[in-house]
């Protein structure tokens, strides 16, 4: 009997102590965050996650890189269909329309409100917020890594042709390229014409010139939007690029050929490139010793009133079907990322720009933009805020836009290989792109974009 009694007492004591211990040593609530960055950038995200976990004791975010943006979306869809989705996921800019129709998310603004966080949505740069917001202006996801396209130019080469400033119009660019060629530069400007360059060559160009990519305000007003860049200034632009390419003023540079654009610029081989502000750090780190270079806003055609350029990058979506505790953690995480101090950390360690005005002000106040190697990155903010976003420069809200970008690459390659004329190529891009949009619309009958 005594043994049983003692045993019971011990059990009771043990139970009591566990009951007491649980609140004291409560395990933090774990939730998953999947992202699509790799290499150096993935390490920065990991540090960001560590900082968040160290900043509080209630939640623990588990951050997993899925390699790239495409794979992140694919893996998330597969996980969602199996009921094993992460709580927070990073989805790239052009995946926004797909996400909005998925019915698989919890609106970010609602999430923050439910968990008692007050976010001032007017603090986001309008050019960034509108890209990810619904047509009514609600934020369904939070902007995360953001960039825009800039023109990188070699000051030394321009000094040789007597210029101290970057060309502001495409007409000037044409003349400068000619002068650079005559001054003995073999590659005045480098471009690439794969699916990836749809971003700077077609999307950014169209926004800055206030030209539509598609009807229905680039798709914001309905799934029945169809492409129409075969009727805009874009055709003129491709014609000029092709003309300069034929004259040897522009060279095509890509990894498959041996050297990509950024390498070609950093080594001084090519004198102008157009790429993301995210490459600012790479050029600085890998540039030829002593080379003088700077960044400028993308040029416009003479007589054009410049509009804001588009944001590129990705936003953070919170997926549906998770527990309240995980949502609390996700809200705390989003709030942490929203903090200006995180913006400073993030932009210092990557080439991305701050997404809020307060983040930008905080970084300016800290002297971030005053000295090399970060000097010049403020041009990206100037480009993004060149104007109040118009109905067209808000962004692009088209289904399966990844495939339309692929079609862009295909047709540009056909044009540059002289397989078809510029107008025929852009017409084919519109025709094939519209078939992709038709299919997307058929897949989502009776659904409308929020």
């Amino acid at each position, binding site marked *: 009997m005594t043994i049983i009694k003692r045993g019971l007492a011990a059990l009771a004591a043990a139970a009591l102590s566990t009951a007491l211990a649980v609140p004291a040593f409560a395990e933090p609530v774990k939730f998953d965050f999947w992202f699509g960055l790799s290499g150096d950038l993935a390490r920065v995200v990991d540090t960001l996650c560590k900082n968040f976990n160290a900043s509080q004791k209630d939640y623990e975010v588990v951050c997993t890189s899925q390699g790239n943006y495409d794979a992140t979306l*694919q893996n998330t869809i597969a996980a969602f269909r199996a009921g094993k989705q992460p709580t927070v996921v990073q989805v790239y800019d052009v995946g926004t329309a797909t996400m909005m129709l998925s019915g698989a998310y919890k609106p970010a603004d609602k999430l923050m409100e439910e968990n008692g966080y007050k976010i001032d949505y007017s603090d986001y740069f309008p050019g960034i917020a509108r890209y990810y917001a619904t047509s009514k202006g609600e934020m369904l996801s939070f902007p995360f890594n953001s960039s825009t396209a800039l023109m990188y130019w070699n000051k030394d080469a321009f000094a040789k042709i007597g210029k101290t400033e970057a060309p502001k119009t495409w007409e000037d660019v044409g003349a400068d390229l000619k002068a650079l060629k005559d001054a003995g530069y073999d590659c005045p400007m480098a471009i690439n014409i*794969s699916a990836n360059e749809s971003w700077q060559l077609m999307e950014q160009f169209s926004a800055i010139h206030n030209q539509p990519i598609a009807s229905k305000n680039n798709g914001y007003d309905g799934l029945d939007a169809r492409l129409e860049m075969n009727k805009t200034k874009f055709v003129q632009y491709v014609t000029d690029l092709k003309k300069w390419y034929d004259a040897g003023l522009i060279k095509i540079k890509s990894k*498959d050929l*041996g050297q990509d654009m950024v390498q070609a610029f950093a080594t001084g081989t090519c004198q102008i490139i157009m790429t993301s502000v995210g490459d600012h750090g790479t050029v600085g780190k890998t540039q030829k010793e002593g080379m003088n270079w700077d960044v400028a806003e993308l040029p416009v055609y003479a007589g054009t009133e410049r509009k804001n350029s588009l944001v590129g990058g990705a936003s953070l979506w919170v997926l549906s079907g998770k527990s309240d505790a995980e949502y609390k953690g996700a809200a705390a995480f989003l709030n942490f990322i929203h903090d200006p101090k995180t913006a400073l950390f993030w932009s210092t360690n990557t080439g991305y720009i701050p997404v809020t005005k307060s983040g930008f002000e905080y970084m300016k106040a800290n002297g971030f933009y005053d000295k090399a190697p970060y000097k010049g990155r403020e041009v990206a903010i100037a480009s993004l805020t060149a104007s109040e976003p118009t109905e067209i420069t808000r962004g692009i809200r088209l289904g399966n836009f990844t*495939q339309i970008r692929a079609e862009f690459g295909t047709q540009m*390659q056909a044009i540059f290989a002289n397989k078809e004329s510029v107008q025929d190529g852009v017409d084919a891009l519109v025709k094939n792109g519209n078939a992709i949009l038709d299919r997307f619309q058929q897949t989502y009958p009776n659904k409308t974009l929020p």
Partner: protein
Amino acid sequence: MEKRVTFGKWTIGILFAVPQLILIFTFFYWPAGQAVYWSLTLQQPWGGGNIWVGLDNFRSILANADYWNSITASLIFAGISTGLAMFIALVLAALTDRQLAGSWLYRVVLIWPYGIAAPALAMAFRFILAPEAGFMAFANHFWPGFWDPGLNGADAMASVIIAFSWKYVGYNFIFFLAAFQAIPRSLIEAAAMDGSGVIRRFWDIQFPLITPTIFFLLVINITESFQDSFGIVDIMTAGGPANATNLMVYKIYSDGFKGLDYSGAAAQSIILMLLIIALTIVQFRFIERRVHYR
């Protein structure tokens, strides 16, 4: 009298077969059935619902000029790379079988390419064939514009064919060498004593005796060139330039996974499956007749 072990009840036999049947059902018939179902519907990628569309997916694919271009590219790729990989492997195996100096080394080394993963080998060939930096930069130096896989579709197709063939030379080599070594030495020695040269012996004795192996490799190579080309294309050309190397299997991947058009991709994989089945039937029907099994 032959002695046989038999089971009294047929159920026991079935029971032994069950594990295998379950495996085949789970990993082949079930996914294949799912693909057929998807190809007849329009699937929302996030699983929100689907609509029955009958054969619409097949109709829209077969009405698409890009898809026919993709079929043509796949047939060209399959034909040339199979021919190249088998011919080179046959020559190498025949020479190795002749016990030339150092043949023990070739026997080991020539098998390696097959052991290399497609993406790694594609990356290597991308460097080797890069027009500005690689080996071909040399050729471009003397004949500017000679090699440009970035814009010239034929050059890009040649690149992926070279990379694929290189890998399958190793695979074919093992089989050819084994086939050659299975031929009784006495036959070849007898022919040699009768005064026939190397080439004569090859055509009259060795070649007819290895036709079963040639036939087997033909079927495997053609099938694999439709399916295994994916990794090489993805790394080397991503289907470009201007769809010149957009092989059927790569188009399935890019439409399905990048474009999230699961139904269209499912329909394409059904067509690919039917095409491979048809090609294999043709080979068995018409080419196998010329094969001499001993």
